[in-house]
């Protein structure tokens, strides 16, 4: 943690390699979050690239090192909004998947369902379930009141349940 804080402070001071090291350490999270938002590998890579661009341009404005991850995910979410209005590409049908194992089907069911959730609910679902952010942290990322996050979360869950084929969700 101390080493990471040191890297963030170095990045804030203009050390580009320190920031690259921080981004590299999060490349899986960045790519997966982007992919879940847009469901297209190439768009996800473009989003990662734009996120990196914005991070390098604005790292000096990061006020608190401990909020680096929140700050970074906010950039990624803002960047990915460019892509929302594009229709989400259909995922390959299960029989076309390389691995047609039942678990993969389950995974694809959720992916397909998530792709159909309206963007503003989808982002909240991704941040809550996948990035494991609390409602107040999501509120900080999206700059909306916590209550709005909670309501979008509820509506997103409801959407998944009713239109995504989910029968029950804890």
């Amino acid at each position, binding site marked *: 943690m101390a080493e990471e804080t040191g890297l963030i402070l170095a990045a804030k001071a203009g050390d580009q390699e320190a920031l*690259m090291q921080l981004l590299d350490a999060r*490349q899986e999270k960045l790519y997966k979050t982007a992919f879940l938002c847009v469901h297209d590998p190439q768009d996800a890579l473009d989003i990662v690239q734009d996120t990196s*661009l914005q991070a390098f341009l604005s790292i000096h404005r990061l006020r608190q090192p401990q909020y680096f991850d929140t700050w970074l995910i906010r950039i990624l979410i803002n960047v990915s909004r460019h892509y929302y209005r594009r229709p989400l590409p259909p995922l390959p049908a299960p029989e076309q998947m390389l691995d047609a194992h039942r678990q993969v089907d389950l995974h694809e069911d959720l992916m397909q369902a998530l792709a159909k959730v309206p963007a503003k609910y989808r982002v909240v679902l991704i941040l809550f379930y996948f990035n494991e952010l609390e409602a107040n942290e999501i509120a900080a990322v999206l700059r909306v009141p916590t209550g709005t996050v909670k309501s979008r979360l509820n509506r997103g869950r409801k959407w998944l349940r009713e239109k995504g084929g989910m029968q029950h969700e804890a």
Partner: protein
Amino acid sequence: MKPDWQKMSDQLDVPTNLVHQALRRGQARANLRRRHRHIGVLIATALMLVAVVINPLTLQAGGVAPAIRQLLDQEGKKTHHFDPTMNQVFGDMADLSVYQPVQGNHVVVGAVTLSVRGVMAAPGMRALVIDYQGGHLDPTALRKQTITVTMTGHDRILDVSQNYGQIALGHYRQFLAFYTPAPETPSETISIRIDRFNGQAKNVTLPALHIAAPTATHRTFALTATKADVTGGVDAVDAGAQAFVLHYHTSFTSTNSHAKALRQAAWISEATVQRHGKTLGQLLLGTGGMRIGDTSRGATRTVNFQSVFATQYQKDGNDKALALRDLPADATVLFRLELPSGSTQRDILGTFELPVSTLLP
């Protein structure tokens, strides 16, 4: 069936080489953009020496109403940012009190005329409406332009948000909004530089805009709270009809173990509207925790900050914004001052309750 998010995440393949390359490309583009900024400053300086015809523009409500369904569009790819607070503050185009006349408002670039149709100002926030008229305008290219805004008296501005909309054939309108993290001055000059104008290798600088600071009522307070050798307090409010700037500070000794972090940050970013102990909603935050400056007296250091809020609030679970001015006189707003700490949780130094009437002009 319970959605298994972890399983879904685990099963997503990550092309690590490609992701690393994407990160590197982002870094390279950032460096390129910085170089372009330096070149842009030189071009901007040269262009500003060119005399430009100045036409004062008196704004009419219908005159600036942009045909943009939402000023800053959350759903579309029209903007990098979506800022609901800016939309609430500047979204009512019939509210003339936020408009200011503009002088020196147009520039011709090839076959395109750019003109600033209006400036809207609220405490801590500004917005501009810019028209693009002419041939060969490419909406996709317009959206890829890089806009740089500078203001006299402000070292930096925050969160430039923008959106575009088509008004007619060959006529596009741009809405541009940002926060101003510095004390208001009686008058100010806004400079706008547009890089990659209309998809071309051209940088354009609009004529400097001279505008007055927004009308605001300044009120001072002496509210303080102390916790663990740190004192914080709310000092003043610059209250406007659409937004207000809250000024606050923290004081601590240089021997404080968190002095380094305390020198950098403190936040008032949550404000609860309440009446008779019942929560009515949360104030819409524009931007919080902007560090304005610091002073030292002996071993005591005082750091000043400001936050910008709209004079509107939202009930939990409800997207509709309500106006503070419609509340009864005994309604209050509870501000929470938070400090950085060693953990990921922020420390709450204290809360400050102010009557709603003190936050309105």
